[in-house]
């Protein structure tokens, strides 16, 4: 197995799908000639030409609206909304148009459309270039939300997203762009399936994207204390693979969901709610460790404690979740 960096994973997935299916097109602001502000898409314009890979005006609503119109008339558009923070601007097109079409058309046509977007904090980009848009879209029937944690996953999930027949929001965490990882054996990963990335018996930690790495680091710290943490990478936030989480809880009896988003309205509290409704009898404790309750601060000394670090995750397991060494 070869290694791959995250940017290359994104670019290769796009290149392979553009190559494989000529209905696939890719467009966005500065994605073509310049190769994207995060340099994730260089070379595609040169390889596939201006008819299939192009730069657009700064018009997020037209980007998503046109992608919707293109998708229901035979193309398979992939668009980039540069920062996840900008996703409210095209949201009407995604939610009121794209996500509803399959159902209200009485299943006349699917809407194969992918929106890639760079998300997440920790980059000192301030309140309006650091958000995780998940909470805005989590409650939208008809939409899928994919949130990979490694280059290998990103490639296989992006390829699967492009082949999926539904609107998919594909989130790329900014702090992951420079990470490296192994290529997967599989060409595709199924959307809506979680991945148990570390087995454990005392507590289940659920995360996505950068959070998975923090959870794994926390699990290492906890292992030093004799606490065995299971770490689940959801990979997809909607639809939610609740089964995998519940199976884990049945073993560990404790759930900690971590995310960068808010405690009220975030996916982590939602997951705690759904898991409690499903498996209350198995739970000794459940908790969502989330970002703060204000906009995301700019200054390093404010931004750093805003998000849960590996240390805080471990500390939360020890204190709040109350897992003592050798608990189970």
């Amino acid at each position, binding site marked *: 197995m070869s290694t791959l960096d995250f940017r290359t994973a994104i670019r290769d997935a796009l290149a392979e799908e553009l190559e494989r299916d000529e209905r696939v097109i890719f467009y966005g602001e500065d994605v073509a000639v310049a190769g994207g502000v995060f340099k994730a898409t260089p070379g595609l314009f040169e390889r596939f030409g201006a008819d299939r890979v192009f730069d657009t005006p700064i018009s997020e609503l037209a980007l998503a609206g046109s992608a*919707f*119109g293109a998708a229901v008339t035979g193309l398979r558009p992939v668009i980039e909304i540069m920062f996840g923070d900008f996703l409210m601007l095209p949201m009407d097109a995604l939610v009121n148009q794209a996500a509803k079409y399959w159902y209200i058309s009485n299943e006349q046509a699917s809407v194969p459309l992918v929106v890639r977007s760079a998300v997440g904090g920790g980059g000192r980009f301030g309140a309006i270039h650091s958000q995780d848009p998940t909470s805005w879209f989590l409650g939208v029937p008809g939409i899928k939300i994919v949130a990979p944690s490694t280059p290998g996953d990103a490639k296989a999930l992006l390829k699967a997203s492009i082949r999926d027949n539904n609107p998919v929001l594909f989130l790329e965490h900014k702090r992951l762009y420079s990470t490296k990882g192994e290529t997967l054996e599989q060409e595709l990963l199924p959307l809506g399936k979680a991945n148990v990335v570390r087995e454990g018996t005392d507590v289940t930690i659920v995360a996505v994207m950068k959070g998975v790495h923090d959870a794994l680091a926390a699990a290492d710290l906890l292992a030093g204390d004799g606490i065995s943490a299971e770490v689940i990478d959801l990979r997809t936030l909607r639809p939610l693979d609740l089964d995998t989480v519940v199976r884990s809880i049945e073993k560990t009896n404790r759930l900690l969901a971590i995310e960068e988003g808010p405690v009220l309205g975030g996916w982590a509290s939602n997951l705690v709610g759904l898991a409690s409704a499903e498996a209350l009898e198995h739970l000794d404790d459940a908790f969502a460790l989330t970002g703060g309750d204000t906009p995301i601060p700019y200054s390093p000394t404010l931004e750093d404690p805003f998000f849960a670090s590996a240390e805080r995750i471990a500390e939360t397991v020890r204190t709040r979740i109350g897992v003592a060494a050798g608990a189970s």
Partner: protein
Amino acid sequence: MARNSTQAVAPPAAELERWLTGYERMLLLRGFEEAMQTQFMRGEVHGTVHLYIGQEAVSSGVSLALRPEDWVAATYRGHGAALARGVDPAGLAAELMGRVTGTCGGRAGSMNVIDLAHGLIGCFGIIGGSAAAATGAGLSAKRTGAVAVAFFGDGSTNHGYFHECLNFAKVHDLPVLFVCENNLYGEFTPMAQVTAGADITARASAYDIPSERVDGNDLRAVHAAAAAAVERIRTDGGPAFIEAMTYRQVGHSKSDPGAYRPEGELERWLERDPLKIAREQLAADGVSSEQIEAIDARVAAQMEEAIEQALAAPYPDPVAQPATEYAA
């Protein structure tokens, strides 16, 4: 305005055929809306309904200039555009009545009808949605040589969707015909009061999109403008714009105070009823009143049958026909 009192030379047969078809279509649109008004009063049509009475010449004239492979996107006031495109009146009536035989199985309702088999991408409940859908269909149409048409109202031209989509269509050279049906009001508010400059074609011109203002109550004038625009789009590529001046003879929707119309305005426009104009034109072409009455009778019978069919259809059963959130 005695605009059609001059005796024209009878047009060539093919052309006369087109005007007869156009007249029949307009009659169908009118008859349909009148029937829906009745069925709404009877409680068979639910929620609310936005009638097209008075504007029939616009979508009828435009549709006569289209090919089967072309795409059309319309608004919540979209029954006219749908029927002009060939959507089955019985299915459309059934949709408005929430029956399982409806165009969308009763899932969509009046404001959101979709019929891809007839090139109707959809009726869009969100202002500007039609412009976005047609812009996206333009991306598809560019490959196939088809044209995508967006219908929308004067009020929609103040929306971000409008601006972004016109600019997007122009810079990406998309084969989109934007048709603004200027009926002088957005709901209960006069166009000039909320539309800076009060000159909608000037907006299109600012994007360097060829634009024309046309008498929207004159089927032939609309057709001429649409045919020329579609021809130019097919030959030279890029979008075109038509502003059709027309008038909504009835309330905005089923709950309209109507107090906003200056005295005498409605009466003046009733004088210029598009059906009346079309009948006068046909008479001037030498079509006999017997021929016209025969068409009237045929459409009336067709409409009666459609309503009967719709009323006889069952309501959908959510247990027997369960919905899926996602396309496979």
